């Protein structure tokens, strides 16, 4: 009886803990950086960063470009997603979009130099990109691998493309889940 009660309590506690774990963390306040004269960006924790690139002169402009690149990436990905649902995908469009995605994936390592995180302005990039850089980079390598395969698959046939599409999308999502703030982009 006692054991049962204990087990029940434990299960309940676990359940609560799990729920607690999923509660979204309170939004980190985002400093609205003025357009000109951005404040000197706080140096990110030096220990973790295998920094790629130097802090740009104008972090806000840099981040805006980064955002636009991601928008364009999303746009190209929608072309792929839409075509993955069609009976006969437009393979020319698929190839063009896959190449675009692959190009962006190759550049992406230079998109997150120090000083372009939430401390510098409005962004969905979370601070842990810079504190857990090794994992970020590993996930980026996964994307690059799968994006490369996507280009090959897109050049093969519709079935190959549909098969590879999910794997490539999965690498995007894996990184977003950990390193991207949810729902600021509206």
């Amino acid at each position, binding site marked *: 009886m006692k054991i049962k009660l204990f087990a029940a309590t434990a299960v309940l506690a676990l359940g609560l803990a799990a729920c607690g774990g999923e509660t979204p963390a309170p939004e980190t306040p985002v400093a609205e950086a003025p357009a000109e004269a951005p404040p000197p960006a706080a140096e990110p924790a030096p220990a973790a960063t295998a920094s790629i690139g130097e802090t740009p002169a104008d972090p806000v402009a840099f981040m805006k470009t980064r955002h636009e690149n991601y928008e364009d990436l999303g746009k190209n990905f929608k072309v*792929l997603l839409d075509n993955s649902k069609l009976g006969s995908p437009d393979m020319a469009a698929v190839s063009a979009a896959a190449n675009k995605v692959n190009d962006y994936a190759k550049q992406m390592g230079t998109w997150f130099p120090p000083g372009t995180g939430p401390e510098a302005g409005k962004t969905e990039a979370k601070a842990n990109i810079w504190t857990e850089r090794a994992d970020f980079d590993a996930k980026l390598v996964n994307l690059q691998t799968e994006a490369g395969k996507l280009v090959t698959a897109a050049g093969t046939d519709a079935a190959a493309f549909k098969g590879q599409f999910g794997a490539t999308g999965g690498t995007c999502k894996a990184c977003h889940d950990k390193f991207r703030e949810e729902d600021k982009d509206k």
Partner: protein
Amino acid sequence: MRLVHWLLVFLIAASWWTAEEGEMQWHYWSGLTIVGLLVFRIYWGFAGPETARFANFIRSPGTVLSYTGKLFKPDYRAAFGHNPLGALSVIAILLALIAQVGLGLFASDTDGLESGPLSPYVSYEFSKDAGNLHEDAWNILLILIGLHIAAIVFYLIVKRINLITPMITGSRKAHAVEGPPSGIAPVPLWRFLIGVALAALVVFLIVWLPTTR
């Protein structure tokens, strides 16, 4: 009718949960099932039994006002079918649900990773806006559902009228209700089956049409 109501309750909850958890494949199917239920409910609003028909429960503003006045009198008896005020709630929730699934069908996220079945027919920008509206419109739905539940609780506690049990069992004591003692006249089975077929057809077309392109 009652089954449709409780299925909607379950599926709306499921849609919320699957969206929160990022289980988009399940969300896709729960949303499509809601589409089917809505098609059936709209059809039933024209072909169903008298209490289900829109023509019988959408009343003039005057009727709604006079009903609201009667509601606070001690000799109030429950209305047969939807009462004139509750009918507004039914219509509001149905419209909000139609808008919600309509947006969801065309929606996609900002990454082009998840999207509704009809997203291939619209641009990235449109689809993304639909996705954001789909998220915002959820709050409207929540408010309407909240009002609906508040009204049920009001009847239960203030008027001592239990509207929940009849919604489960389908019957209530005739003397407490204004209306024919014989209750709701039955509807032939074939009319029900046409509704089911219509709902299934719409869902099938939504899933199947993009694959023909």
